[in-house]
């Protein structure tokens, strides 16, 4: 068995298992930690697939920055609150699980029809697509073919930063109609 097959069969079950464990956790911090495990396994898959740059980005951006942000917000909001098990829509949980399993079956059938379970990637990937190393090759594609989208993402990041500052500022402002409605007690509940 080749090395990449061994890596796949070791990390594949961990990946799916950590995702399911994330789903089953009541505690948001535990769910976030299982999600970190899942992000690491996806990073390993990137490495096996010849995307070593994305492997580093996945660990730095996802497992590092984004999950720290998640944990920070969980700590900020308090972790001791349990989740209510009351279903607002009758049978929502069962329907959700059935639909999710249906999506999985449908996607796997689509993979079987479109790609097939025997097709192996080309052996010359590192020599052709990854010529000069993955980081160099990806920068060649990024700055030649996708330069305009790359610049557009910088605008996107600035807009996101401004949006967060606006949303998070505690400045006193005019109350909107929706907030007035939200503050009066619910008539149906009373």
């Amino acid at each position, binding site marked *: 068995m080749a090395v990449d097959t061994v890596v796949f069969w070791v990390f594949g079950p961990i990946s799916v298992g950590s995702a399911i464990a994330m789903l089953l956790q009541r505690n948001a911090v535990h769910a976030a930690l299982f999600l970190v495990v899942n992000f690491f396994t996806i990073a390993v898959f990137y490495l096996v697939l010849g995307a070593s740059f*994305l492997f580093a980005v996945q660990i730095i951006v996802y497992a590092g920055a984004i999950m720290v942000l998640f944990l920070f917000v969980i700590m900020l909001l308090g972790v001791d609150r349990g989740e209510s098990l009351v279903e607002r829509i009758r049978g929502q949980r069962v329907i959700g699980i059935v639909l999710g399993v249906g999506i999985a079956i449908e996607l796997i059938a689509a993979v079987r029809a479109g790609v097939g379970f025997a097709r*192996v990637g080309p052996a010359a990937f590192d020599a052709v697509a990854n010529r000069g190393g993955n980081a160099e090759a990806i920068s060649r594609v990024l700055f030649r073919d996708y330069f305009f989208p790359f610049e557009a993402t910088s605008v996107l990041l600035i807009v996101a930063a401004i949006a967060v500052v606006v949303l998070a500022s505690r400045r006193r402002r005019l109350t909107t109609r929706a907030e007035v409605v939200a503050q009066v007690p619910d008539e149906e509940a009373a």
Partner: protein
Amino acid sequence: MSTPIAYFLVVSAMLFAIGTIGVLVRKNALIIFMSVELQLNAVNLSLVAFSRMHNNLNGQVLAFFSMVVAAAEVVVGLAIIVTVYRRRRSASVDDLTVLRG
């Protein structure tokens, strides 16, 4: 590389489905958000696998862009959750009924 590409696509499909179930079933806004992240990662994995299959890097660049967009989305989404929490004292999506008809 001797692992069929489809294996990675199947893992990606399973992760995507698990994320979907999380969005549909869970009530805590933060966990729903984490499930959305899981779905994004599943799609990124399939993009990288397709990039490997077609022997060019366009898929990896697209995954890179999707990571950038996901980072921006997480920041704004978490800010919205914090703002909602500050106003309603709850992170449960069931309590957000202001827009109810």
